[in-house]
């Protein structure tokens, strides 16, 4: 076997592609031939070096790229699986887009909400109104009330015991005189009017010295009219 043939078969020998007879022939030749032995040695060396060239480290960014690609592909597969999955994916995309859109506004919105709440707490005491905590229930009383049994400044009872206090729409007979008073929220008579006769001293004392309780609307004092009915006094012919 010539050196040229043996050197062609060294590669096959290293790759164990020779049968037993060919292998024995080649090995026998190599044992006696120095150039062929050197070629075998150099080929072995080259193969070993090239074998170590496979020990390369994968760049970490490549692993990350592959994971991202796998994730995207898996999502696309899931999306195509059925209509419900597609809807879920669509909803997830919208939610993600909305979150991304709202993210820049989240801090200003939270800050505005917190500051408005703080301002409301600061202004809350000034927003409270006066409450009527008396015994009187906060009902609607359209007309002022009048305290009966009043007296004049001298302490003598005013002769108005026979006065009738009627509603503003009550009927009045011909023997009666009507005094209508306008009472302000402070309980003071601001105006008066007499129907059926002139103002009598009795009416004057009632206007001046009576204590009126003003009308109320939802517990708050208000303007109101009160009708007082007096018996008509007979005029003595002089």
């Amino acid at each position, binding site marked *: 076997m010539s050196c040229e043939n043996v050197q062609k078969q060294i590669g096959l020998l290293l790759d164990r592609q020779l049968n037993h007879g060919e292998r024995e022939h080649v090995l026998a030749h190599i044992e006696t031939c120095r150039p062929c032995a050197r070629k075998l040695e150099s080929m072995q060396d080259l193969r070993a070096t090239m074998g170590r060239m496979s020990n390369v480290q994968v*760049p*970490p960014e490549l*692993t990350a790229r592959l*994971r991202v690609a796998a994730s995207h592909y898996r999502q696309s597969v899931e999306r195509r699986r059925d209509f419900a999955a597609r809807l879920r994916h669509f909803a997830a995309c919208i939610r993600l887009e909305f979150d991304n859109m709202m993210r820049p506004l989240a801090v200003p919105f939270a800050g505005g909400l917190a500051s408005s709440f703080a301002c409301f707490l600061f202004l809350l005491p000034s927003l409270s109104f006066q409450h009527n905590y008396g015994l009187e229930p906060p009902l609607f009383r359209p007309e002022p009330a009048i305290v009966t049994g009043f007296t004049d400044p001298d302490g003598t009872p005013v002769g108005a015991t026979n006065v009738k206090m009627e509603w503003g729409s009550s009927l009045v007979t011909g023997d009666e005189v009507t005094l209508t008073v306008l009472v302000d929220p402070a309980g003071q008579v601001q105006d008066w009017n007499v129907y059926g006769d002139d103002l009598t001293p009795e009416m004057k004392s009632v206007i001046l010295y009576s204590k009126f309780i003003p009308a109320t609307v939802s517990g708050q004092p208000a303007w109101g009219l009160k009708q007082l009915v007096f018996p008509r006094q007979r005029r003595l012919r002089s």
Partner: protein
Amino acid sequence: MSTSILELSPERPAETAEAEDFLLVEHLRQGAEGAYEELIQRFQQPVYALALRLLSDQGEACDVVQEVFLKVFRNIANFRCQSSLKTWMYRITVNEAYNARRWFFRHRRREVELDNDPDETRNWKENIRDSSRSPFDVACDRERHVMIEAALDKINPIFREAVVLRDTMDRSYEEIAEILGVSLGTVKSRILRGREALRDELASSLNARPAMRLVPKTAE
């Protein structure tokens, strides 16, 4: 430094690997979340190593690996399990590397790379080597790798694929025939001619400029 002729490759038993491949393919077809991660963990390194040796460019190799995995994801339903999963992925890698090389020659051949020193572009993690080997061996290996890569770049890509698959990726002749889609005789011929071309290139590069002689010395 030399290895025995009868040294066996330290891979797992073929039956176990086939069973694992079959299970992984089934999980991928069902769309299981962990299957994608397992596929990446098991095959990213060999696929990247093959792409890097076929293209000699880290960025191109990363792009090719991504394309390979995307094709695997898309076509896993059509995988018939007639070959091993690794062989199938190697076949896709070789085809993608061929496409990338063709695209490179069409579009980027005239571009000039500003930073073409691989040692400068490596980060500190890549510079940490196996601690079981001496720095002298590591330096020798690095020098040899650079020379072999340069020589591989110059030989015919068809021969290069066969030599890399055999000597770097340690694939059998039958697997290489399946990956390249050629007959066994063609594989033997390509490997033989590829090794001869590689040896010639290495010899011419050594004759053109004297190789760096790395001899350990003591400080005087």
